[in-house]
């Protein structure tokens, strides 16, 4: 399973110049990405960055103002039974009918979904000791989340979208929820998009990243590739930006030295050549935070240079 490219297969999710305008404001703009099947994608962004807008277009709840969005090669907002069946969705607040029993919810799911897998739904909750006759309102938050997940999985949808799925859960319930998701991915051809604010946990769950700020995609790609394309450089404070071999994502100046998170390309000569420079690899958390912290101006100016192909060559000329 390589995630470096889609290997000729149909992407699980593909957007081209996708945009959504609310009145005069753009919630999301120029969003182009292609996610291979089998990926677990971490979708990160501050509140108002466009995450929910993107998610709602993926699940077919909103129609784009601009561009295209396809789930497994089919337009996402066609709003047909087939298009709805392609995406399983677990909302942040796990909306279920409080007076229904778990079994009632499952029957509802069966009535509404052509590929419903009742055996899967039942086995998931039984494995967690959730009794089918229990009313939803008597369940704990963690149990409700598990019922929501079981329902999303029982749809047998090839794409699973989780919106802050564990934000409201206690640590044990979080772990149990994510165990379930990871085991399901291991068991079959499932692609997962997880919107999350918990940056420190991304490395554990995700092999793809999409970072949104100010309604624009700032960073997208397989985690391994993105880590290779970035480095943390410690240089003397006096080093001018122009001497740094790549695009500066974040620079922290101390009295005598500066820490710089740099986006490089394989063609860039290694920065180690310089005396007094120190290079370190970047962690997923550092990488994501650096992009989230980028000022809007820098983010959008180099955005146009990078466009939607972050793994393409960096065109900035090295000056020395």
């Amino acid at each position: 399973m390589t995630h470096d490219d889609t290997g000729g297969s149909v992407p699980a999710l593909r957007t081209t110049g996708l945009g959504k305008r609310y009145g005069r404001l753009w919630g999301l703009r120029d969003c182009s990405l292609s996610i291979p099947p089998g990926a677990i994608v971490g979708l990160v962004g501050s509140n108002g960055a466009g995450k929910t807008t993107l998610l709602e277009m993926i699940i077919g709840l909103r129609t784009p103002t601009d561009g295209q969005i396809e789930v497994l090669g089919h337009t996402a907002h066609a709003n047909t039974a087939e298009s709805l069946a392609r995406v399983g969705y677990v909302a942040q607040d796990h909306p279920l009918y409080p007076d229904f029993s778990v079994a009632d919810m499952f029957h509802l799911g069966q009535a509404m979904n052509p590929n419903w897998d009742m055996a899967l739904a039942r086995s998931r909750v039984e494995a967690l000791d959730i009794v089918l006759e229990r009313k939803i309102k008597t369940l704990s938050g963690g149990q409700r989340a598990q019922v929501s997940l079981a329902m999303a999985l029982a749809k047998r949808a090839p794409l699973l979208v989780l919106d802050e799925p564990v934000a409201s859960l206690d640590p044990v319930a979080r772990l149990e929820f994510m165990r379930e998701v990871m085991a399901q991915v291991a068991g079959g051809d499932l692609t997962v998009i997880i919107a999350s604010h918990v940056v420190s946990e991304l490395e554990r769950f995700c092999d793809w990243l999409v970072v949104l700020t100010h309604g624009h995609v700032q960073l997208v790609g397989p985690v391994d590739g993105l880590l290779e394309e970035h480095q943390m450089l410690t240089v003397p404070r006096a080093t001018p930006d122009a001497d740094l071999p790549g695009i500066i994502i974040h620079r922290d100046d101390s009295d005598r030295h500066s820490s710089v998170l740099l986006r490089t390309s394989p063609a860039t000569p290694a920065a180690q050549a310089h005396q007094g420079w120190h290079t370190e690899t970047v962690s997923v958390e550092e990488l994501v935070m650096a992009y989230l912290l980028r000022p809007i101006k820098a983010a959008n100016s180099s955005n146009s240079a990078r466009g939607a192909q972050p793994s393409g060559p960096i065109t900035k000329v090295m000056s020395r």
Partner: protein
Amino acid sequence: MFRFRLDGSSGVPPYLQIVHQVRQSLLLGYLQEGDRLPTVKDVAGDLAINPNTVVKAYRQLEHEGLAGGRPGQGTFITAASVPALRGAQGALRESLEQWLREADAAGLNDEAVTALIAVVRQDVKKEKVS
């Protein structure tokens, strides 16, 4: 069945933690030739980590000749405990102990030692590259 642990705060990438644990368990004899490693699904579900991470770790172990996949059966330990490695480690350990005593005598604290090791390791890597 062998079970892995995951330290979320160690800063070591999860796939490397899995590789390290197999290597270490081989050295300590907790894993032996012919033992079956847990399935990718079991590890992913147990630790709540990305299954591709487990695949990557197992591939690395295969690459190192420590484990091998048998179609339809799983991944098995193929290396006996590694005596050569063990011997080399013994000698390395002794020289490291000696070095650490000297560092301590020179007044270096843990942080200084770690920083020095990181810098020197980088220099050695550079030598290798050039």
